[in-house]
């Protein structure tokens, strides 16, 4: 039997040699650390330094005393938030938009990718891709501007169409009951094509011989999609789903804020806009930070839980 070549060394000696090796590698690759410096500077200044400031959520912050000097307030701001009527409203509004968004927006890009992948004409596929990607490049400001023009009661073509079909005009942008539908479906319109890219990419990874064999066995198009394509992109689907579930409580600020008006505020005030208003407009810095921290912790926890569950069930996890 061959003796283990490592057994010649004592544990101590091994550790020393390991350290020496690491040190040598670091010296040899010092330029690689130099490459990381710009990213590191940004990371420290604008990611980790702000984390130090999270403590103001537990303080009565004022700019004169600074982060460290401001007096402690314990969990006062958290209790204040949980007791305020806003708490239930912003959490409910955020959740109902993200869940609606998930249900309406998640399956469509997958369906689009499957359809695009299985049509025979390459040129048609490319044209369809280019057209469906277009809306992605429109900014939220422009999107909302377009909607307010096109959905306008008097001069918008959408209401023109509705009236021609014999219905009274609908004030889509100004009524609370339409806010969620307009928000979600305009988002679907913008992202359906772009969202399909990742699934299309995953579909190209499927072994073409599987399809050839299935054709010889007489499998039709739908059967091949069901038995080959969908199982093939299932890992991608589950990763995307994890990320969507993990961001259940985080809803981007930009579009909601711009769609808000006095008529829909009861359904359009979400966590991110509330944080902004409390912090930047009302200047209640500690209160705003407390809500922000609450939200970050929830998001982090959600993602961890969903990731754990997914890892256990299907072996697909983010880390």
């Amino acid at each position, binding site marked *: 039997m061959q003796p283990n070549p490592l057994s010649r060394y004592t544990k101590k000696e091994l550790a020393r040699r390991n350290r020496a090796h690491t040190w040598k590698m670091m010296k040899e690759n010092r330029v*690689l650390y130099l*490459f*990381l410096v*710009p*990213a590191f500077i940004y*990371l420290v*200044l*604008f990611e*980790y330094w*702000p984390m130090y*400031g*999270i403590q103001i959520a537990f303080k009565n912050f004022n700019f004169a005393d600074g982060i460290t000097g401001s007096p402690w307030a314990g969990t006062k701001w958290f209790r204040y938030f949980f007791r305020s009527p806003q708490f239930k409203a912003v959490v409910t509004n955020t959740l109902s938009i993200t869940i609606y968004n998930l249900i309406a927006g998640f399956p469509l890009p997958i369906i689009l990718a499957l*359809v695009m992948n*299985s*049509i025979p004409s390459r040129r*048609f596929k490319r044209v*369809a891709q*280019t057209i*469906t*990607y*277009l*809306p*992605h*490049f*429109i*900014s*939220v*400001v*422009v999107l909302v*501007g*377009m909607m*307010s*023009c*096109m959905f306008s*009661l*008097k*001069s918008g*073509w959408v209401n*023109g*169409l509705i*009236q021609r079909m014999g219905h009274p005009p609908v*004030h889509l942008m100004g009524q609370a009951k339409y806010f969620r539908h307009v928000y979600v479906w305009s988002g679907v319109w913008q992202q359906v094509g772009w969202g399909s890219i*990742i699934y299309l*990419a995953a579909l190209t990874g499927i072994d073409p011989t599987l399809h050839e064999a299935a054709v010889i066995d007489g499998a*039709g*198009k*739908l059967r091949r999609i069901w038995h080959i394509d969908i199982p093939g992109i299932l890992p*991608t689907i589950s990763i995307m789903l994890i990320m969507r579930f993990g961001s259940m409580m985080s809803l981007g*600020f930009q579009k909601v804020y*711009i769609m808000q*008006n*006095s008529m*829909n505020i009861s359904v359009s005030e979400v966590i991110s806009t509330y944080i902004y208003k409390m912090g930047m407009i009302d200047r209640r*810095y500690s209160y705003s*930070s407390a809500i*922000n921290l609450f939200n*970050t912790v929830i*998001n*982090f926890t959600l*993602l961890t839980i969903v990731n754990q569950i997914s890892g256990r069930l299907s072996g697909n996890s983010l880390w």
Partner: protein
Amino acid sequence: MKRMSAGDRAVNFVFYLFLIILCILCAYPVWYTLVASISGPTYVNSGAFILIPRDIQFAAYKYAFNQPQLWRGYGNTIMYTVCGTMLALFICLPAGYSLSRKDLPFRGLIMALFVFTMYFSGGLIPMYIVCKTLGLLNTRWILILFGSFSVYNIILIRTNFQSGLPEEMREAAAIDGCSNSRFFFQFALPLSKAIIAVISLYVAVGYWNNYYNALVYVTDRDKQPLQLYLKQLLTVSIGNEANGEADETALINQLSQIVRYAVIVLSTIPIMCMYPFLQKYFVQGVMIGSLKG
């Protein structure tokens, strides 16, 4: 070519129909905006369904061209987008390359430090305090800096280098006396045009379309980007209409509707035009990036 079964032909028909309807739904609002911006105002204001321009005129563009605020915003946005995208490449490309190297000691630890910030952050007010401390509030710097660093992009670049550059290639180059930095600039970068194009597009679109950073950190009007100007111009009447006030007060000027369409066209065309040029690289780049996240 084998003949298709009847079932497959029916499926194909449905698929084509689905794609055509989807394309019309995606394209029509964009097309309408373009057509309305050069059509007669009375025609557009009537709320008609327009397919081709009518009473072609460029009054709206003439009006828009005479708005100094629009041009200032335009100039600012171009500056922020160009500088920001270059900064993003400067930060993310070398970092992504370093992290792609398996022989880099403490790679896992550094990676963890980066990834943690994807899921946990200080938040709005702590960030605001940092910017105030650094004296960055109300400067152009902040609008160039924010958006340049993205862990997601660094991971994309790292994955790309890992799968696109064979380990043997670097070892061979190292034996021939090629240093790390020379290898990066002479081999790694030229072989990564696709991923550079993809990252540039992602980042540039982000800069072009962002109004949040300017809203929070910059109050000076001359430093405002295009999107913030558009926000004032395009969304000001939503509230009015919502309050039940008729269009007359908000849209005194009959032109205003088509001016809006014209401004939308002017502000969106540059960024939309980037895509066809980068499309060649795009599919390739995204494929590499998504193979293993």
